[in-house]
């Protein structure tokens, strides 16, 4: 569906800085995501990875640097930010389904208000995406009647209904009960296999290792290490990456002591 003249680079971030008061959260980030790539960002909490993701659709306004998506510079003060965000899907840790709307209307709402689709068309797209995440039978449920995993899959379907060029995932499984994580990751994996461009902040190392085209390790507001998943997760070059991975992959026996 993508026209041939669209740029290969979907997300381009350069020299990005962000501070909350005196706290420097991002200290000069450069990032490129090409069409069809799945880039996973890993790192300890407070490393700035979620802030980076939120700067990509300008939910956080950066202090410095440049963010461009599909060639549109979002950091331009005169940009039509609402128009730019239409093409950037976002999935939150806490799902954020509209609690006053049922599932179907959650998916149809922005299609109708933002894209101007008529009711029949919006409903068709909504149902197709609900089917895609395996929840077509929940179309008339209210969000609070769904499990966390189901809510997150609906949230993914909602973002997909806008036909985004890139999907941003902000720790999509961190708020889920462990047994519900798999369903959401499977949906994301299928999405990746279908060629969706994805930027994923996650603590799921197995997912990153198997699905990501590239992995970024962030710490203290900078990208410490970047490369193919097998390399960054399987054979990290930096000491900070090794320490982090040892803690995440083997939280009880630190530094991989033998059983």
């Amino acid at each position, binding site marked *: 569906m993508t026209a041939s003249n669209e740029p290969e680079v979907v997300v381009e971030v350069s020299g990005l800085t962000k501070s909350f008061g005196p706290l420097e959260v991002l200290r000069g980030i450069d990032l490129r995501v090409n069409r069809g790539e799945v880039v996973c960002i890993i790192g300890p909490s407070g490393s700035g990875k979620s802030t980076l993701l939120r700067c990509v659709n300008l939910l956080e306004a950066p202090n410095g640097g440049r963010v461009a998506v599909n060639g549109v510079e979002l950091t331009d003060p005169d940009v039509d930010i609402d128009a730019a965000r239409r093409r950037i899907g976002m999935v939150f840790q806490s799902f954020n389904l509209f609690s006053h709307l049922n599932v179907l209307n959650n998916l149809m709402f*922005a299609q109708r208000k933002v894209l101007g689709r008529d009711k029949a068309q919006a409903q068709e797209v909504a149902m197709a995406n609900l089917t895609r995440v395996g929840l077509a039978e929940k179309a008339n449920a209210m969000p609070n009647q769904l499990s966390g995993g189901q809510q997150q899959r609906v949230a993914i379907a*909602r973002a997909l209904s*806008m036909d985004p060029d890139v999907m941003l995932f902000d720790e999509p499984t961190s708020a889920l009960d462990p047994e519900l994580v798999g369903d959401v990751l499977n949906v994301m994996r299928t999405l990746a296999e279908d060629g969706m461009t994805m930027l994923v902040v996650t603590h799921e190392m197995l997912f990153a290792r198997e699905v990501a085209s590239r992995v970024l390790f962030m710490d203290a507001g900078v990208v410490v290490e970047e490369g193919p998943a097998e390399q960054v997760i399987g054979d990290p070059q930096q000491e900070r990456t090794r320490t982090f991975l040892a803690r995440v992959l083997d939280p009880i026996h630190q530094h991989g002591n033998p059983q």
Partner: protein
Amino acid sequence: MALTKRQRARVFRGVQYGIGLLIVVIFALTANWANLKNAFFNVDVALSMFPRIITVGLYNTVIYTALGFSVGLVLGLVLALMRLSTVRVYRGLAIAYIEFFRGLPALLVLIAVGYGVPLAFPGTIFDKYTALAIGLGIVASAYMAETFRAGIQAVPAGQVEAARSLGLSSGRTTSFVVIPQAFKIILPPLTNELIALTKDSSLALFLGSTIAEQELTQMGRIALNTSKSLTPVVVAGFCYLIITLPLGYLSRYLERRTGGAKISTTPESISVGGPA
């Protein structure tokens, strides 16, 4: 022999009941019931007030309240949005308005509007209904603005972020995501404000009115003078309860249904006190 904690509590409770009962008995024995009955429960006087106390008094009370509440609702919402605006001028104006009108007795505002507006704009048609809609609306809006603000702030930030990330503008996000959810949260306190306003509509009697414009309190007061009996007070009071008791029930029902706990997550508690 020392009593257990439970036994002490029971003895204490018994003493409380005893004191309460004693006070009731003293009043019951010392009051002149014949006088009270003649003054407050004169059946002839009560019957003579019907049906006009309903068709005119109750009717006008409901109309005045509805008008004031509608104006207050719209104005209050605008004020709340101004209060939460990023534009400092709007914020300042809203705060000044809210503090000013919340701090004044409703009666003074009503008189100022009722007599001031015709003076300021001579020749304009300014009937009692308009005067009350504006006067009560101004007072109610100051309270409702704070209720709306608390409700809007109680809507999780993630709802706004989700809407904005789907490409909805700030205005549409407010209209279609924030306000509908805020409204659900503030329905119980809003019902309380409606009850308070119902009673405040009685201040209409200070504006002077034709016979057809009288509301409950004024009709009660006139009947008081002509009948030389206090019965009209009871009748008028009964009529207010016809309005306010169902509203109170509605408020409690809504609170149960929306699970009032949501509101307590706001940094500042919602103002439930109505205009006074």
